[in-house]
């Protein structure tokens, strides 16, 4: 593995491109993916390379984007359907949760829907309330779907390739704030497949477990570096997938540290943090030395003004403070 500084957006582009070369049935569809070159430039150059048949601009029709992908996948194609931002995927929630996630079940295995929904997620940059969501846990609520949320280039690359190859529908979110973030990648010609549902230890430590995904991993790692200066060594568990959840990794870490802070960009109620905390108290009660803490966004729609927007956002300092409360 060569250490190269590749932005996450480039890593995702490489994964998509390689999978399109590998399998003729893989195609991309979505708003502005072709002629505009992708709103987030993930599909830059795709129209030229693969043509209109496999790089399909859609109208602003999220319900149809969500459902056409299901039908095409049932019929044998492998669609990668892009929601320009995850906020717009709310319009397609029925197609995603009720159709993509259930066609296999309600016909008792007669069909499968091997598709990937890609959606740019997260908030910041004064995008205002309706464009500022990190609602991954909503989608992870539904059985029948898998949900992947990478925190860096290497993971995004390996996770997306697996998501495209797997026969189950996957919602794959890409944190907008992480698109430009550089990170190491496999060399050209070397492949990486990260299994669906496999988490990863991003930093080892004995004093507290920080459980996170996507952008939360960065806050956790920053907090861990800061805590280390005070002699507190945090272990950072990046779950990478919200469904399935690799709880074995969390439990193993918790048995060592006996303390946990959960870090997420999402809203606090009925959240990733709620789920992990509930599972820990159910299954690790004997190992628990302190209350489980949760660091999430504030429970509020996002305002426009930068100053108060930042008050709502989780950050490394909030993680540090939470850790210090339970040590």
């Amino acid at each position, binding site marked *: 593995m060569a250490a190269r500084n590749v932005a996450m957006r480039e890593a995702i582009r490489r994964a998509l491109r390689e999978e399109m070369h590998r399998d003729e049935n893989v195609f991309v569809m979505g708003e502005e993916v072709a002629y505009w070159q992708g709103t987030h430039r993930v599909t830059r150059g795709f129209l030229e390379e693969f043509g209109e048949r496999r790089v*399909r601009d859609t109208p602003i029709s999220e319900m149809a984007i969500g459902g056409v992908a299901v*039908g095409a996948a049932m019929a044998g194609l492998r669609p990668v359907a892009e929601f320009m931002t995850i906020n717009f995927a709310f319009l397609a929630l029925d197609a995603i949760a009720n159709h993509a996630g259930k066609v296999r079940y309600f016909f008792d295995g*007669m069909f499968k829907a091997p598709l990937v929904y890609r959606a740019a997620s997260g908030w910041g940059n004064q995008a205002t309330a309706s464009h500022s969501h990190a609602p991954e846990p909503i989608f992870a609520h539904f059985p029948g779907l*898998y949900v992947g949320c990478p925190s860096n280039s290497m993971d995004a690359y390996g996770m997306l390739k697996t998501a495209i190859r797997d026969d189950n529908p996957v919602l794959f979110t890409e944190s907008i704030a992480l698109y430009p973030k550089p990170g190491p990648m496999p060399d050209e010609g070397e492949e990486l497949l990260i299994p669906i549902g496999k988490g990863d230890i991003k930093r080892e430590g004995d004093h507290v477990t920080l459980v996170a995904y996507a952008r939360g991993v960065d806050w956790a790692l920053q907090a861990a570096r800061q805590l280390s200066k005070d002699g507190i060594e945090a272990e950072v568990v990046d779950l990478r997938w919200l469904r399935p959840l*690799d709880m074995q990794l969390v439990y193993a870490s918790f048995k060592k540290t006996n303390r946990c802070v959960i870090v997420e960009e999402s809203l606090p109620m009925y959240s990733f943090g709620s789920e992990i905390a509930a599972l820990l108290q159910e299954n690790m009660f004997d190992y628990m030395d302190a209350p489980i803490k949760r660091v999430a966004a504030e429970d509020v729609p996002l305002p426009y003004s930068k100053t108060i927007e930042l008050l709502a956002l989780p950050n490394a300092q909030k993680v540090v403070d939470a850790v210090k409360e339970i040590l």
Partner: protein
Amino acid sequence: MAAPTKAMLLDWYRQMVLIREFEETCHRLYEEKRITGVYMHLYSGHEASGVGSMAALRPSDHVITAYRDHGIALILGMDPKAVMAEMMGKKTGSSGGKGGSMHLASREHNFWGGYAIVGGHLPLAAGIALEAKYNDKDDVTMTYVGDGATNNGYFHESLNMSAIWDLPVVWIIENNGYGMGTEVERASGQVELHRKAEAYGIKSFGCVDAQNAMKVYEVASQAVDYARQHGPAVIEHVTYRYRGHGVSDKQYDARDDMSEELKKWMQCREPIKILRDHILSAHDDVDEVLAGHESEAKALVKGAVEFAEASELPNSYQELMRNTYVPSDLVYKTESSIGAGID
């Protein structure tokens, strides 16, 4: 387009009396609480709409519909035993008891299913048609959609998408006058429903008297040919439902004007009678065949009920969980994994 042959007409009669016998039996079994699901939408009254239009298809074409799907399943040749067993939620049901009345399907017959969310199957239809176009096949996707769904976003987004991508879909709007309990006139600003499709540049084959299987077949044949060669087509089928929106619908008992209306349709525009009269006026020596089809329908449905009632109910955790996901080597699971499904 050739007129339907004698053999075709007789086969349509076989299909229509089978559907009617099946549906009326379902209704009786529901009243007797031998079928216990809360949702069941019967095709009685609609028979000619499905029979006449699907006669224009070839076996490699695709069919998809909403929740009024029993008739569609039987026309395509699904075994009445498996369909009846599904009504009763049995292991031997066509969807293993997981889907019930609204989720019949059969891969073998290119029947992509009945779907329960109004309009939810419409983008799926476009996606199935996209596969045909993507892989240069000239199969069409025949898609049945109720009048109520034409007011929903799925309809407009899916039809527009089919138009800009020239997808080989025949959109058949089965207009039975009501979206659940609301008359078309109270629900739709444009009451000529096929014109909504026309607004997106879709070729309209107009409004058809869908109680007359011969007329349905004639127009469907043109629309299917068009879709195969050019892209999406729409037909509006004017029809009527004999058993309300669903079996739990008590509206027909409560509203005199509706039962008057129902009587009028049954007396003047009964699809099986229209077909039968046509056959008798056009062909000799058919009485025996018609009677044979009628007794065969009774026997088939009786056999289906016996089979379904004798079948086992699913009753294990394994059966509950199975087929939530496709078993996959690409998925990492441990005993502590949550939300991975079981294989």
